[in-house]
């Protein structure tokens, strides 16, 4: 029986964990003070040493990203990506709701490392309680002098602006986020230039996920070695796994990376609901390729293992599906989301995802033909890798993986339509 490893969530069960008083009682802001006593380069070096990888989905090494900042720069911005919108993913909201000061402390540490005096937190517009909690925590931090002209007594100014999004999935894509912050339509920017070169308002900018920053206080307080004591060599630390779907006890669990998926589902989540058989698992948020039950039960929860199984750990939003799941319907629902959320900037994504969605819906309703399946695969391949951002890939991967791994269900649906061979 495995247990949770509480690094980020250490004080989240306290009644007043969201208040400054609660955070301070549990050692909050000690790490920030420590960071301000260090040279910025030393903070970056420590984070590099810890091996912390970004928690937004791509898993890019955090310290390395910071070191990409243009050396000669007058202004640097930190953007905190709190636009958590991927179906199945609900980890950042917990940090924002339960321990917003942990995030603010992480922001202070990152600001120290990258010499940033103004951080922007871009939060999903639909997040109500998380917004109120981070807003109130920031106000507390300003009153306590942790934010402001002399942040945490460091002699350096650090301001935090909280910006509520208006409800677009693509604003969680880092350059879409920048456009939205600047008051433009939330659409990704072509890279290069990368944000570390020319980001918010054209200035060098680091964009970090909420969970990534929430790891920093522990790394500063306990050191890189203590951090690496959790997880695997290439995926050090812990991860917040949000489990939804057909399990007895869905929820959010903090686990050292490298724990078997089987242990997460069977031990912590109480197994598949109603004693039913497991059918499939989406391991890292809706955009990651689906795994069959056998594949899922063989993986461990770290970047490498899930990748070897043909999927991605992504945002660690684990969606569990039992044997009663209609995979055609499930994909239909999922792709309808992507068709709704494509920003519409690039031709293949704008037109392709909606074509896929409409074709899939036709199949789900029993009006599709066998040729539609070939067409779906072809369209999914056609939108992959040919757009400004990876949204189209995110939409294509579920299509291709569902079609390849659960083809029988799709074939049964089109043959049942009595239009075999029809396009």
């Amino acid at each position, binding site marked *: 029986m495995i247990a949770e490893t509480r690094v980020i969530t250490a004080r989240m069960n306290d009644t007043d964990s969201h208040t400054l008083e609660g955070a301070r009682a549990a050692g909050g802001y000690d790490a920030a003070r420590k960071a301000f006593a260090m040279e910025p380069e030393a903070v970056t070096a420590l984070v590099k040493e810890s091996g912390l990888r970004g928690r937004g989905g791509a898993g890019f090494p955090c310290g390395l990203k910071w070191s990409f900042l243009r050396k000669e720069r007058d202004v640097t911005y930190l953007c905190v990506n709190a636009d958590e919108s991927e179906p199945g993913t609900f980890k950042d909201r917990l940090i924002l709701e339960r321990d917003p000061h942990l995030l603010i402390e992480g922001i202070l540490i990152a600001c120290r490392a990258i010499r940033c005096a103004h951080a922007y937190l871009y939060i999903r517009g639909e997040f109500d309680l998380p917004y109120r909690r981070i807003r109130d925590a920031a106000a507390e931090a300003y009153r306590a002098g942790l934010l402001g002209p002399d942040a945490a007594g460091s002699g350096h100014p650090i301001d935090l602006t909280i910006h509520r999004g208006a409800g*677009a999935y*693509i604003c969680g894509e880092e350059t879409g986020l920048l456009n939205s912050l600047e008051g433009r*339509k939330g659409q990704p920017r*072509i890279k290069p230039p990368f944000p570390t070169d020319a980001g918010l308002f054209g200035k060098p900018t680091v964009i970090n996920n909420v969970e990534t920053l929430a790891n920093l206080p522990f790394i500063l307080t306990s050191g890189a070695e203590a951090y690496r004591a959790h997880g695997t060599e290439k995926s050090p630390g812990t991860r917040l796994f949000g489990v939804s779907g057909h399990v007895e006890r869905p929820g959010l669990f903090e686990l050292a990376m490298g724990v078997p998926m089987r242990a997460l589902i069977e031990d912590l989540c109480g197994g598949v609901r109603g004693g039913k058989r497991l059918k499939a698992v989406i391991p890292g948020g809706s955009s990651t390729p689906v795994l069959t039950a056998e594949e899922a039960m063989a993986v461990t929860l770290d970047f490498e293992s899930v990748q070897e199984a043909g999927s991605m750990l992504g945002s660690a939003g684990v969606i569990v599906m039992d044997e009663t799941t209609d995979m055609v319907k499930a994909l239909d629902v999922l792709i309808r989301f992507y*068709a*709704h*959320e*494509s*920003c*519409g*900037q*690039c*031709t*293949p*994504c*704008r*037109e*392709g*995802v*909606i*074509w896929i969605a*409409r*074709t899939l819906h*036709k199949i789900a309703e029993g009006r599709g033909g066998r040729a*539609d399946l070939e*067409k779906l695969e072809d369209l999914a391949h*056609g939108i992959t*890798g*040919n*757009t*400004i951002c990876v949204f189209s890939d995110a939409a294509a991967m579920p299509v291709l993986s569902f079609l390849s791994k659960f083809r029988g269900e799709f074939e049964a649906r089109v043959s049942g339509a009595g239009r075999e061979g029809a*396009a």
Partner: protein
Amino acid sequence: MSGGVETVRFTLNGVEREAPKGMLLIDAARLHGVDIPRYCSHPGLKPEGNCRMCVVEIEKMPKLQTSCTTPVQEGMVVHTESERVLEERRRVMEFLLVNHPIDCPICDQAGECMLQEYYMRHDLQPSRVELEEKIHKPKRVDLGPLVVLDAERCVLCSRCVRFCRDVAGVEELAIKNRGGHAEITAFPGRRLENPYSGNVIDICPVGALTSRDFRFKVRVWFLKTAESVCPGCERGCSIHIEQYQNEVQRIRPRENLRVNRYWICDFGRLDYRWINENRLLSAEGPSGRLRPEEADREAARLLREAKAPLLVASPRMSNESLFALRLFREKALPEARIAGGSFREPWEGDAILKRPDRNPNRRGMETLGLAGGPEEALRAGPDLVLVIENDLLGDRPEAKELLTGKKVIVLASNRDATASAAGLRVPVATYAETEGSWTNFEGITQTFHPVLRPVGDSRSVAEALAGIAAALGADLGPVDAGTLRAAVLREAPQLDPARGREEDGRVG
């Protein structure tokens, strides 16, 4: 490459080439005659990379790259026509046509639609779309005084949005909604009404943004085009004039990086109706209509009888006409005074194209020594005034006092206020019917060419002057535009249209 520009060497479709360092691949390819198809990319706008039509294969790069956003680099090996590239173009075309209405027979852009052209070049496949219904978007949207939007035909290239923001400097257009429901719109409470709004029609690659002025007037393949110059102000934007059945139908900007880049203002775009309307078709004297030779004799008689004739030139006349006027005075009427100028009030210029002076050739007129202002000359007491292409009364009604008591002969293309008040009016051709040149405020001389036949009895100003001179017993010699230009250049080489062309190779 020359001129001290740093260059890189790269391989384009198997051939080693050179291009200026930092140039975008799409432009570097064009430099070497390789046309990469595009929708969102426009040389006058910042790169966007959204249509994906211009993707190319670059060796050592796993994904196809948009050539409109990728700068050429030393040693780059680029393929613009590989199997992968052609397949991707075919796909982009297929995606664009999923919801695009196939209404080419009634679309105003038929004949100059990039969707049509690229379909013929890159797609040509039967449709695989088996959906019950296309996505419908608004038709005939009133975006502004000049522009009508058909959102269904739009390929969301965002050229129009970027033009307003980056060139016109106004936030008037945006793309609203997402995904397949995205559409161009004016911002709430605003309209597309900046003074350059018409340019979005020219840069729209499909039939989404159409000209309210030109819609359904004529199919574009019936139009005949000539390179010309806008007479609207001293900028002298390069334009195309397009005619059908000897009437101007449309004016569009012509690329000229030194003068107007790719744009014209809305005033210039619509400044053509006077060429079609209210024309002076034949000479008219006190006794009525005159044949050209009768008009020449009558003008000669009046000029001969005059004690103190004054010839008034205009900064709207071409360099060639101005030179012909000088010849006329020299050879036929040496006792006449001569003055040049205009009463046309300046308007407010801007930092984009519009200049305050609303005359296209003040610089040429001054260079040829004809400046001086008509007011002073008119007050000096002439008993006869010959006014050429200069609506003194229309531009300033108070000028009537200056003409009172004087005999007035007018060489005019239109029945304007001055022509109407004249004792003898002789028709002349407009710039759209003749060849000539104007020199703009920066000293750049551009030529214009005839696209229309002169209407009625109208002749070029030089021909009309030559006719009157002959009646006076003087011979001006050949008065074709080429001969006159050569004479102009002997005296004023700075008025040579060829000057500066070699700098960018694209001056009109």
